[in-house]
């Protein structure tokens, strides 16, 4: 299987220490690949380096050491538009009060394919409409984005990313603002996009169970390093998670899918951890 992304010995540190943290945050010695067609989950506690990793992959930040290759080309050698034709990002949300219609926003995904063009072509529109159909927002085409619900906005932003026709789709906490029903829809949608269009997915999430259910492999980050990279059942492991997250968890096998399910031991009133088994 060929690889879409190769990250080799990548290191990065922010120039100035955040006063709160006391020392500058740094990523170190990051090496992994993303295989074509796979769904790779990136997990880790707050400030483990998940967002920094997205910024490195999309050239918002430049690594201080190491190389990042997409489809065999170093991303430092690619223009922003060339990179955006290969990697699309679905951010957590769009800015408040965005005045554009759904169709206009999705069409922006066509920008990197012809940055010098003033207006999109009929072909751009066809691709955008196909992307909107794939995420189920075609009937919202003329609706202003600011009037949408959180779940609808998420699907619109996903459609915009699909309109980029990327090799790799990066999702940043796609379910953070969604209620249960939309989370389920989101998972189904990602599966379908992955299977039908063969899109490779890098899913950054706080939700261990969502990632364990959806991903082929998981990358667990802690403190800027890789704690473990492997199949969900090898990464979602009680001892490892307890040391990375600093709290007791229990892992069971889902009877329905056979995938690992993580349960937190909530502290009781007297300060001791309750039994994780419900």
């Amino acid at each position, binding site marked *: 299987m060929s690889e879409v992304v190769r990250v080799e010995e990548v290191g990065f540190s922010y120039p100035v220490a955040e006063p709160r943290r006391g020392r500058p945050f740094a990523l170190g010695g990051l090496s992994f690949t993303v295989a074509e067609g796979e769904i790779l989950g990136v997990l880790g506690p707050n400030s483990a380096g998940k967002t920094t990793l997205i910024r490195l992959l999309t050239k918002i930040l430049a690594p201080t050491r190491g190389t990042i290759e997409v489809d065999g080309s170093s991303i430092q050698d690619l223009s922003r538009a060339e990179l955006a034709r290969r990697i699309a990002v679905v951010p957590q949300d769009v800015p408040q009060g965005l005045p*554009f219609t759904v169709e206009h926003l999705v069409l922006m995904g066509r920008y990197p394919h012809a940055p010098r063009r003033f207006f999109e072509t009929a072909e751009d529109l066809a691709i955008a409409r196909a992307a909107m159909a794939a995420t189920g927002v075609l009937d919202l085409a003329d609706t202003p984005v600011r009037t949408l619900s959180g779940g609808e906005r998420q699907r619109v932003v996903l459609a915009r990313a699909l309109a980029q026709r990327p090799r790799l789709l990066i999702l940043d906490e796609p379910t953070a603002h969604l209620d249960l029903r939309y989370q389920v829809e989101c998972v189904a949608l990602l599966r379908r996009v992955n299977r039908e269009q063969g899109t490779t997915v890098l899913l950054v999430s706080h939700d261990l169970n969502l990632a364990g259910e959806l991903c082929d492999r998981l990358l667990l980050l802690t403190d800027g390093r890789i704690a473990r990279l492997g199949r969900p059942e090898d990464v979602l492991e009680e001892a490892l998670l307890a040391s990375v997250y600093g709290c007791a968890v229990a892992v069971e096998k889902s009877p329905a899918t056979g995938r690992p399910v993580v349960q937190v031991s909530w502290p009781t009133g007297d300060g001791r951890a309750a039994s994780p088994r419900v």
Partner: protein
Amino acid sequence: MTRVDRLVLVLGLLGVALLAAVILAVFVGSARLSPLAVIQALTGGAGAGSTESVVVLSLRLPRIAAAALAGGALAVAGVGFQALTRNPLAEPAVLGVSSGAAFGVVIAQLVGSGGAVVDTLKTTAFGFGGALVAGAAVYLIASVHGGFPVQTLLLSGVIVGIFFASAVTVVTSLVDINRLGGIVHWLLGNIAPLPGPSLLIFTGLAALGFTLIVSQARELNVLALGEEAALQLGVNAERLKLQVFVAAALLTSSVVAFSGPIGFVGLIVPHILRMLLGPDNRLLVPTAMVGGGIFLLLADTAARNVVAPAELSVGVITSFFGAPFFVYLLRTRRGVL
């Protein structure tokens, strides 16, 4: 209807409206000329040195051209500043950029004279420098984590504007007022009939500023998603911001150099167009050039005529309508582009 069709249609309609405004402006004025006399002057039927010919060809037409250009430039600068700051209240005067340009122009008056064309270029260059300094100051004061909160941006603009307005006052107090011929009148914002070479330079600068902004209209749409998202969509956000900022400052300073600081055109015109056409900068920038021209031409025609034979400053008229409009926007559409 595709966006191209819409743009062509709207530009066509605005073109007709501009023509109508030009016809109105050329026929009315404090010199009571009959419509027939105006037509004779236009067609060369009146003698070269006749009153009709001087009034129509040397006063009214050049002034109409200057008003239309200035209005278009200010409206396009407004669209540019609004897209950059993602704030519908941003505008050359509100941001203090006009005051910075005015200070530069006043300083230019103190530097020796070297013929009409050289003076025109010098004045514009100094105004451009002042506009850049004021704009950069507002940018640095107001930017918080890469964004511009509405209140911070407006306050910064007001403060920088007051600072440069004071600086202008200091200079005019220190210097013999005769060396700054007509400066008080100019500071209120007045469209003057420009001589041919000046009009040519003004046209060139306006065209340059317009081109620099309209060529980035699609990118400015993407920038509305935030800088990081724009970068991830392939937009070179740093270069985009610099180019549009410099172009908007150039448009503002050329208007200030030729007509003085005229406020609120860059606020009113883009807002009306946005209500009619939506948020797409590819439609807004070209239509703002024509729509701004119509607006300021009508305002200037009113300035020439409402208290004839005396004249109002066109800047007074735009502020008279602009200030309440600003309040309306602030109260109803805060933070929404």
